[in-house]
């Protein structure tokens, strides 16, 4: 499996995701053991991108379930197409069908609207199922999810039990907005995704922005790392680093110390709260800037 881990690492790099060996091992275990992978980490460290990269690397579909407070089975699993059912009922009325037949007809797969979870288990080829920000969903939904992820089957009272045609590669992400249940954690492999080190982040910037000057890329990454080490309300993630690099490129900045004013004006790409922006005054900026290599 060691060789396979390296191959997966290469595959992910080819689709633009730089994964360290530990993450590649987690993904390989996800495939081999068939267990969901729970990714935790601050917002912006690339948790969602893992699932996207995995689906590209495996050339399979990505099915995403975005969790939110109040998410229920109707939005996550399936729903009946009520207007069509009502229409069908009227037509069956005219045809003089028996009530039992009517019921069988309108509660058939024809009127079923599959939502992400049902879609994921009815694919011929295993898709990547991304359950994003699972910590935002309610406990009740979490318990339901646990059942689906244990058996990979869904019971629809009117139709019976639908078993998985293929087991999806399940990736759950959490920002820690709420403590997840112990049962869900036990069901999953766990990986904590931290902010990347300078080398890895530089590789990401160079991979995503191949035309960027090497020196500027190194300065940007160094600056962001120093900024992350300070006490901010919202630390800039990788996406923010890339946004800032794009902003600086579009303004034709070659070196970070070229124009401190432009630097300050573009900090909005990195810092997302007024409180954090307010902290970056002249002296603070000077400590972040010097000496950048």
């Amino acid at each position, binding site marked *: *499996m*060691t060789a396979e*881990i390296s191959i997966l690492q290469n595959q992910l790099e080819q689709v633009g995701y730089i994964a360290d*060996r*530990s993450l590649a*091992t*987690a993904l390989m*275990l996800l495939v*081999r*053991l068939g*267990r969901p*992978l729970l990714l*935790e980490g601050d917002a912006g460290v690339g948790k969602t991108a893992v699932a996207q990269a995995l689906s590209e690397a495996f050339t399979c579909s990505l099915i995403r379930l975005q969790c939110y*407070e*109040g998410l*229920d089975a109707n939005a996550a699993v399936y729903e*009946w197409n*009520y207007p069509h*059912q*009502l229409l069908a*009922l*009227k037509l*069956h*009325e005219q045809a003089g069908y028996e*009530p039992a037949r*009517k*019921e069988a007809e*309108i509660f058939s797969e024809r009127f079923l609207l599959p939502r992400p979870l049902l879609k994921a288990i009815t694919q011929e080829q295993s898709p990547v199922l991304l359950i994003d920000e699972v910590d*935002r969903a*309610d*406990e*009740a939904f979490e318990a339901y999810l646990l059942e689906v992820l244990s058996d990979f089957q869904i019971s629809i009272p009117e139709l019976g039990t639908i078993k998985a045609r293929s087991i999806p590669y399940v990736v759950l992400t959490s920002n*820690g*907005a*709420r*403590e997840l249940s*112990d049962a869900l*954690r*036990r069901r999953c*492999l*766990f*990986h*904590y995704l931290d902010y990347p080190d300078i080398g890895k982040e530089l590789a990401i910037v160079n991979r995503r922005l191949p035309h960027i000057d090497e020196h500027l890329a190194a300065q940007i990454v160094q600056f962001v790392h120093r900024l992350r080490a300070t*006490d901010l*309300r919202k630390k800039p993630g990788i996406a923010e680093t890339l946004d800032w690099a794009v902003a600086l490129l579009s303004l034709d900045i070659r070196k970070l110390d070229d124009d401190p004013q432009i630097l300050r004006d573009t900090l909005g790409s990195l810092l997302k709260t007024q409180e954090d922006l307010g902290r970056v005054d002249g002296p603070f900026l000077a400590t972040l800037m010097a000496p950048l290599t």
Partner: protein
Amino acid sequence: MDQGASQSGQPSSLRNDQSPANRIQDFVSFLRGHGYGVGIQETLDSLRLATLGNLLDESYLRDGLRHLLCRSLDEWRRFDLLFEQFWHPQRVIQAEQQRRRRDPRIPRGNRNQGVTGLSHAEAELPQGEADDEPKGGGAGRQKALTRIDFRFLTERGEMQAMAQLAERLARLMRQRLMRRERCLNRGRKIHLRRTLRKSLAYGGLPLKPAYRERKRQLPRLVLILDISHSMARYSELLARFTRGLVLTLPEAEAFLFHTQLHRVTDLFRQTDSDTLRKRLERLAPLWMGGTRIADSLYQFNRQFGRRLIDSRSIVIIMSDGFDSDHPEALVAALSVLRQRAKRLLWLNPMLGRDDHDPDEDVLRDVLPLLDLLAPAHNVASLESVVNYLATL
């Protein structure tokens, strides 16, 4: 157990006579002894690692076991040290000896003392962690604990058990506040699925429609906790209760105050215990100061009132009420909250004490502004507050 430090990068313990499966099982037990809740399935999956790859490749074994056996960031962060202690105890002893030799604070004579009890690892746990485990337990003990006044808790184990109870109560509160959608025979919103079902008996005509009740929206809790000197015996546990609420209710907001107000919602949401500890240490000088309740509430109204207080907000002030501001200022600040919030509660730990002698004048002015003035000196009193909130 150990055959000496590995030279080839492979776990040295795997090279002795025991089978890899036995060693992995031993490691799983070792982790359980350190508080990892590893179940049978995880143990079986750990054993499957041997069939999937080369266990002599240390990075494979370490990463594989880490992903299978950790469940939280705290466990993730402790894993490396425990892995080293189990598979390379000699290496850990050498590293520790080197550290002691370099540490100028350790007397020269003690620097070469060995690290005892490595296999149990208490010595290696962060300070306080080893004795953090609650001793004793059981339902009877827990029930008794709920009645103990927070100020009489002196043992670390009791404090820990109480903190866990307070956090569990916070989680329970979320459950009580949530109401699942109900199907009714009357209402304003049609329950299509049930209506359709009922209509089958009437040839598809919805003669007897079913209705559903709107899902109850969670209130926004705003918790304002006094951490001044006079609250010293209560503020730590009330802070744990507050943090429990902030972690379980997405819209909850938490503030600490003494002579100034500090928003700590983001801090309390921090699930990384290392960061939480560091940031709390930075706040440490603020604890135990004097109290200016009115000033702090005025500051709250000015800075956060407009954004956080509306008809959905329940404001809970946790303070003993010893204030160095004028009572009129307190009444004015509370009046503003009263006008805008859905409910205004004051939890006072002193109310649970027989020797408490409240200032009648202040109480007379403040009481009409409050929806509830209740004690908060033990878990049972917090439970009553949770029950009250569930009825709103």
